[in-house]
């Protein structure tokens, strides 16, 4: 009897301790607030950090319009575009990874693992080298390409990314391939596009080769405000579309058939979702090059904290993507300053171990 009453008491205590649903929602909102604060702090640090020694106070003064000519030029001309690009590109890639993982029901899915980024990079390379959308500058490899026609680059990148997306969707729709096979298909497509880029480089002159090689490394420092505006517009419109579909993505978590029985038009949500993802990833790739694994890392980190509820997973993945990319870029700028390491390499160092971990763990359990 004593044992029984102890068990009941323990049960009652446990029930009292049990969180209410509202508390659980508050917890998720707190995660969003904390992430936003972290992002703001990292962004301020990123604008402040550098060889010119501008203090945080001067950074704030300059941003709010009370800077000197020199600080205005450094912050608005160099650092802020770079930081804003990292913020927007990171957010966009984080969300794209999150949505791709949902609609393809594949925890390994990301623009870079499926070959969408590589397809977009090939398209952008074609635009820059073959269609003359990039003005060549032979002064240094670091500034070898200035995009003179961002719209053509975006269009060609989107076509490259969209072709890859269509092949991946076709395979998943008609062949019902496993998540691992889908990634293998991405590897094959990446190889195909790399082959295409190699061919273009083979027939290009030295400066063009240097330009394309440097361009594909990924660099957040080459965007101007017009290009940033294009990334912002595409990302913002996509963000609205993704958020409108958050309940559909939640339904996808229960499987395609259950999602349909919950009123979701599975085909439309999948195809439109992938097309939008492909567009966003292509625009990012067109202006900053290939940045791998941010879209894989960000949603997986957040799934650990807030589960698979896309109402919160989408915004937190976006914020985490931005924090990751901005931190990686700041690290790349400072670690062996004044040399700036390619951002694509840094994110690959972070993402590849996670990718291997997911593979070893088994994607079904991820």
């Amino acid at each position, binding site marked *: 009897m004593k044992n029984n009453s102890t068990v009941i008491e323990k*049960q009652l205590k446990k*029930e009292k301790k*049990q*969180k*209410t*649903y509202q508390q*659980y929602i508050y917890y998720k909102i707190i995660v969003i607030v904390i992430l936003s604060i972290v992002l703001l702090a990292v962004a301020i640090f990123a604008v402040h950090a550098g060889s010119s020694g501008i203090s945080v106070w001067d950074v704030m003064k300059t941003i709010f319009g009370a800077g000197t000519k020199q600080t205005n030029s450094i912050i608005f001309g160099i650092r802020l575009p770079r930081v804003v690009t990292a913020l927007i590109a990171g957010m966009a890639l984080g969300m794209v990874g999150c949505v791709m993982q949902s609609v393809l*029901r594949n925890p390994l899915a990301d623009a870079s693992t499926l070959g969408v980024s590589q397809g977009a990079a090939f398209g952008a390379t074609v635009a820059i080298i073959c269609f003359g959308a990039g003005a060549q500058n032979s002064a240094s490899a670091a500034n070898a390409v200035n995009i003179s026609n961002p719209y053509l680059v975006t269009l060609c990148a989107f076509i490259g990314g969209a072709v890859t997306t269509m092949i991946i969707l076709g395979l998943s729709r008609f062949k019902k391939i496993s998540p691992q096979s889908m990634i293998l298909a991405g590897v094959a497509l990446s190889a195909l596009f790399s082959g295409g880029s190699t061919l273009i480089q083979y027939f290009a002159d030295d400066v063009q080769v240097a330009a394309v090689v440097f361009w594909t490394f990924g660099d957040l420092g080459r965007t101007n405000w017009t290009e940033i505006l294009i990334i912002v517009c595409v990302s913002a419109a996509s963000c609205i579309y993704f958020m409108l579909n958050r*309940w559909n993505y*939640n*339904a996808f*978590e*229960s*499987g395609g*058939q*259950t999602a*349909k*029985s*919950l*009123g*979701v*038009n599975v085909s439309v949500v999948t195809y439109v979702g992938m097309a939008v993802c492909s567009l966003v990833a292509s625009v990012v790739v067109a202006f900053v090059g290939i940045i791998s694994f941010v879209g894989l890392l960000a949603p997986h980190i957040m*799934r650990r904290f807030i*589960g*698979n*509820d896309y*109402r919160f997973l989408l915004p937190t993945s976006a914020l985490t993507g931005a924090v990751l990319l901005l931190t990686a870029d700041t690290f790349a700028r400072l670690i062996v300053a004044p040399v700036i390491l390619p951002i694509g390499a840094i994110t690959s160092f972070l993402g590849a171990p996670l990718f291997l971990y997911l593979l070893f763990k088994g994607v079904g359990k991820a």
Partner: protein
Amino acid sequence: MIEIKDIEFGYRSKKILHNISFDMNQGHCTAILGVNGAGKSTLIKCLNRINPVHKGAVMIENSNILDIHLNEMAKKIAYVAQKNEVSRITVYDAILLGRKPYIKWDITKQDKEIVDRVIEQLELQNYKMRFLDELSGGEFQKVIVARALAQQPKLLLLDEPTSALDPKNQYEMLSLVKRIAQQNQISVAIVIHDINLALRYCDRFLFIKDTEIYSYGGIETMTADLIEAVYHMPVVIEEYHGIKVMIPHPNQFLSTANPVM
């Protein structure tokens, strides 16, 4: 009353279902029976448009489900798949998903009230904040049924809801479904292999054989001859404490292997 009229479905030249017509009463459970591959699961997937039917109608409250918007269909028909994916979401969130067809931008107070009511009805209060991947098979199945009930459907389709459960959980699950069907006046169609479970908890019995309905009726139609004709195995139907039970004929399926001497 739910009317299924002349459903026809197939893949290219292969006919799977032909001329399927039957009615279901409110609050009644209908067992869908037949051999493996007869088209039982296919039939219920036709009723909620997972499988696109070639012709026919599913009439609920004077509207043909096959013609209306998917979202409107989801307010009238709920479906519990044979295999459900386990996601890292809480039980509460999983049940809340049943309100998906009603949600415009975000959940309302009414949605929460309905979810709370379903949780109470299915006695899930103690683990409503647990994650789905922390539940036992029986608990998980209950949550999936709860999600379907949160849709407030007129017709509930269950595809082998007991196939992954132990005997105790099988009986508990079907007893729960029957109670809820009666309380909420929902028509339930259950694809099931266990004839004894069907005999105990279902009101109507529909057999599919050779793409068509072979038999449809109440408990009185469940005879040994019928089961023998469908499954090609001799059985005996007995009554135990007022409940019909099916027993395979004692001389069937005896091992013919010679014992090792």
